[in-house]
């Protein structure tokens, strides 16, 4: 049997009842969602074309934030045998998310050194 001690906390239990996602909490999350979308729209306006690829790659590494979810769900015990399909899927998710995060930031850094780093040394 899969044991996930924090599965109860996967949704805020501000309503007090067991496993209750209150309407207020949901509205709160939706508010954050909508405001963050507007923020994203306003965040970048003019980007020089040489930075399109690094920006894409850097933003992509940030979307690897799903690693947080993968970590939480990978918390399973082996002492009772096979942790089950759900755990193995979380494990796969953790590997993919970690590759996305680590590789993404490293590759972006590499590109920026090529593009922006030479500019500084070139004194332009």
């Amino acid at each position, binding site marked *: 049997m899969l044991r996930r001690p924090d599965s109860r906390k996967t949704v805020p239990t501000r309503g007090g009842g067991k496993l209750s996602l209150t309407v207020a909490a949901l509205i709160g999350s939706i508010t954050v969602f909508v405001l963050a979308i507007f923020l994203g729209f306003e965040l970048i306006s003019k980007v020089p074309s040489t930075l399109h690829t690094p920006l*894409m790659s850097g933003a992509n590494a940030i979307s690897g*934030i799903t690693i947080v979810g993968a970590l939480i769900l990978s918390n399973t015990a082996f002492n009772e045998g096979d942790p089950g399909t759900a755990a193995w899927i979380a494990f796969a998710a953790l590997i993919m998310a970690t590759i996305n995060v680590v590789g993404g930031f490293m590759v972006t850094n590499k590109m920026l050194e*090529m593009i922006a780093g030479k500019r500084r040394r070139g004194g332009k």
Partner: protein
Amino acid sequence: MVNAAVWDIGYLVAAALFILGIKQLSSPRTAPQGNRMGAMGMFLAVLVTLARMYSEGVVGWELIVGGLAIGILIGALMATRVEMTGMPELVALFNGFGGGASALVALSEVLGRLQEGNVPDAGVELYAIWVAIGLSGLVGWVTLTGSLVAMMKLKGGFVVPISKKWVRFPTWGPPWLNVVKILLFAGSLYLVWLTINDPTNKDYIWGIVGLSSLLGILFVMPIGGADMPVVVSLLNSLSGIAAAFTGFVIGNNVLIIAGSMVGAAGLILTFIMCKAMNRTLPDVLFKSFGGSGEKDQVTRTKVGSDPEEVAMVLDGAQKVIVVPGYGMAVSQSQHAVKEFANMMEAEGCEISYAIHPVAGRMPGHMNVLLAEASVPYEQLIEMDDINSEFPECDVALIIGANDTINPVARTGEGPLAGMPILDVDKARVVVIIKRSLSVGYAGVDNDLFYMDKTMMLFGDGKKMMNELNSALKEL
């Protein structure tokens, strides 16, 4: 037990670092710092998560430590090993992994809940979580399969596992395929709706996985060539949206903030890239490769020159502007170009490189390729700054560029109308290395090829550059 507010504040700081990171990434001066900020935010988010899990009791570290270790190893290895030329493919691949991870988290959550019998009663909680699981899966799988197709398209093809044969990835998309895509999308949404009514039925979940994976493949299949960067950017936006939906699934605001912000910023970037190419997003997505599909028939002819002739023209030139394009990337001729530049500079010639904003497979691709060949950054000059220099230049050497130098764009007619171009036709002599007279991506014939001052070197970019270099040596 630590107060839950501590974790939330930690996540809030991480989210703030992401916002600053993206902001700084959009300006050349602050970009490297922006990337570091993003990485710091991610490190903090992971740290907070691990600390929270530790304080609330971890039942087993095996998968956590194992997954992190394997991921770090593979990610670091791929990022270190990659050649500058393989960069666009790698960005597409990482992007796919991000979307795939979100889809898998949602899948793991729903399977885990079913395994535990932890299904909420009909009500807000059920609807919210199950809709989020369905949408996160839908967007995530589309991102994963779409990015994998995009990666193979950027590579140009893939190796068949057993026969070791190189297969070109097809660009295929008849108009009726758009109807299939719409049906697949509608079908996936219908399955999401079905899961709400019958939350314990796993068939619907697997149905969403199947339909959306197929949708991702068909979505990218018809898009080709110069449109690929736009699609990768759009997929990047989708991977952010998938992460945001996953945030709803596991009830975590940092995922929602970072995901939706990347989704929105990615969409804006997609529009910026479309605009630089003078294309609209619907055109890119729903009209198959080659724009309107009506390509000009090339009926005129032009006698090709040979490298010796060109070498003689180049002999004594005072100012040469090199115009690299998609062809230089495909033929990997950047080192030959650098060798050429070295020889010319030794003769006292001034060399600069004209960089069109959309030259190559990805924006900034030319900069990265030429940087790899150790071309000094100061010699790479952006279009707006170099256009005034063409009239004083003796020779403009064009390697595998076509649409970005087509004078027809100035006339305001046809698919290229209004696209900013490099004024190479103002140079005294124009040398074009190109495989044939065939039309470029936009499907428009290029008057520049037939001008009297134009010399065509027909052939592969690398081969012709090497022949030109040896001809120059013999002079």
